């Protein structure tokens, strides 16, 4: 039961990772990366690493996400690859 | 090349201890040469040593406090680095 949830999360991780790398809109890429880290946080918590999950959620989805947006705001949004 | 790398890595993981097995070396109380293993020691003694139930906190700030000091300094370094790279003239008070 538990590991079914995990498998779903793993698949989600792979999907978001590929998505983040393949979209041409960097903002969407950043959003996918944020989703990736958030999924990661969920996975940590499902594995019982609550501290790590909490940190990942705060930092990965929060701070890094903000940094992503700030950086894209300061640079450019489109890309060819 | 990356595919080859992935293959090699997956091959190497096959020889790791199975996931979740409490018998894995890192979950033991004593290692192969009879020395205590850190993880088990933390579980057993964290509260006794620091009166704190959250073992992670104890490990973080007491047993391995130098790691954490390093971590803070990494963060500090990042701050200094960004300052060096990006900030302009704002602190120029002359």
């Amino acid at each position, binding site marked *: 039961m538990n590991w079914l949830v995990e498998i779903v999360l793993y698949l989600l991780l792979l999907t978001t990772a590929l998505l983040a790398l393949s979209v041409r809109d960097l903002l969407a890429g950043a959003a996918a990366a944020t989703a990736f880290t958030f999924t990661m946080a969920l996975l940590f918590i499902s594995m019982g690493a609550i501290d790590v999950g909490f940190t990942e959620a705060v930092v990965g989805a929060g701070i890094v996400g903000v940094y992503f947006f700030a950086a894209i705001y300061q640079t450019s949004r489109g890309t060819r690859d | 090349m990356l595919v080859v790398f992935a293959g090699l890595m997956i091959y190497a993981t096959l020889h790791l201890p199975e996931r979740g097995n409490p018998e894995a*070396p890192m979950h*033991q109380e004593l290692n192969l040469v009879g020395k205590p293993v*850190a993880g088990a020691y933390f579980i057993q003694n964290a509260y006794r040593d620091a009166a704190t139930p959250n073992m992670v906190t104890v490990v973080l700030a007491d047993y391995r406090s130098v*790691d954490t000091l390093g971590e803070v300094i990494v963060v500090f370094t990042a701050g*200094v*680095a960004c300052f060096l790279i990006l900030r302009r003239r704002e602190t120029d008070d002359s």
Partner: protein
Amino acid sequence: MTDPWTHLAVGILLPPFFGALVAALFPDRRRNGAWLAAVVSSGLTFAASLGGLAYAVIEGPVRYHLGGWQPPMGIELVMDPLAAFFCAVVTGMTFFVFIHGRSVVERETPHKAVPFYSAALLLLGGLLGIVLTGDLFNLYVFLEISSLAGYALVAIGDRRAPVSAFRYLILGTIGASFYLLGVAFLFMETGSLNMNDVAEVVPVMGESPATLAGLVLIVLGIGLKMALFPMHGWLSDAYTYATSTATAIIAPIGTKVAAYVLIRTCFHMFDPEFVRAEIPLADILGYLGAAGIVWGSIMAIAQNDLKRMLAFSSVSQVGYIALGVGLASPYGLIGAVLHTLNHAVMKACLFLVNTNLHQRLGHTRIDRLDRTTRIRMPWTMAAFTVAAISMIGLPPTAGFFSKWYLVLGSWEQANYVFLGVIVISSLLNVVYFFRVLEKVYLRSDGEAYDDASEREDAGVRREEVRASMLFPTLFLGASLLVLGLANAYIVIHVIRPMIPAGL
């Protein structure tokens, strides 16, 4: 209960960090305070390293338990002769560069001198931590401290500097992450993060592809940090576009510490026999080093900028260290360790010369150097000459002797490839250093050599850099001669005790 001198282990580590934190408190108009903090703290830690080296050599290795916890639980610092030696090298060089850098930093990084010193001290502290720690994960943390500070120092400079810094960051992160991945494998296999424990467990456990993968990943990651041959791409640009003082700080010490980790991993954590028997890791390292020596030298010949030439020469010199490690024999290790010291001093001296030239001439292009350079700055060029001779490896300068031990090691294993590489690379070094020396000391082609040009030369005023910059340059240059003559003492009393029992 404990010998108070054992606190030297932590005494080496702390001053740079406190120095960096205190330096950051100064506002920009008090930047001299930051400079002072840098000099004082690096001086303190230099003194502590020398003391620690003496202690470790006389009394034996110190295992310092941080937080008072026994090793597998807590983190330990290991101050054995090898570690203390590297600390002394690293701190010594930084100390002199700091003394030298006072006016240069202000000019090259206006309004940012304070964070510059802070970052430089953090780099120093991170490297010292890497050297001293006995814990695999702790090493990663210190590795990242030094790397981050390194990226920052490399990123200021000319317009291209951030790009090279970014490439450095990507590759550096890959390197550090590979290292961490390797640590994960070892940790899962052995259950311990303490290097000593790992060293004890691995032989009992027997071979396993996972352990090997861990070892290979660690070596791969460190090789990236060390700019070992196929992974050296980041180094040349990073060193070239950074400011001269930043390069002078990073270049002599950055790659050396990675080399140290390599030595630790290959010889202390794993049984050398294990390394040699399971996979020809040592051989691969040696051959990569050899390839790097030749490649770096050839690239150095092709460069027109002094700084860039020196950067490629670093690739080549790192190759010597890798070659020594690859020999996996006492002579090889002696050669590698001695070359670390020698190369650090040589490179520090050369980069200080580079800074001096940049200060006075405003450029460091080799084709624009001529004899007036030498007339203007005779002492700087004298230091350059000594360092160049040492780089080539002519006796009695220090560079000769590390090559001598490497030659002995190559003969011992009858490895003629290494031998040939050492010989050839010395010749290539001659080419790229004498190219500069010829320009500086002799007249260019076809230039008249008569009384008129003599008078013209006499008209060039001497404008040597200020004493605070000249002194460290000359001191390092002179110490190359001293190191050359004292190498037997160093080898017998300091390096011999480092050689692990397994070799």
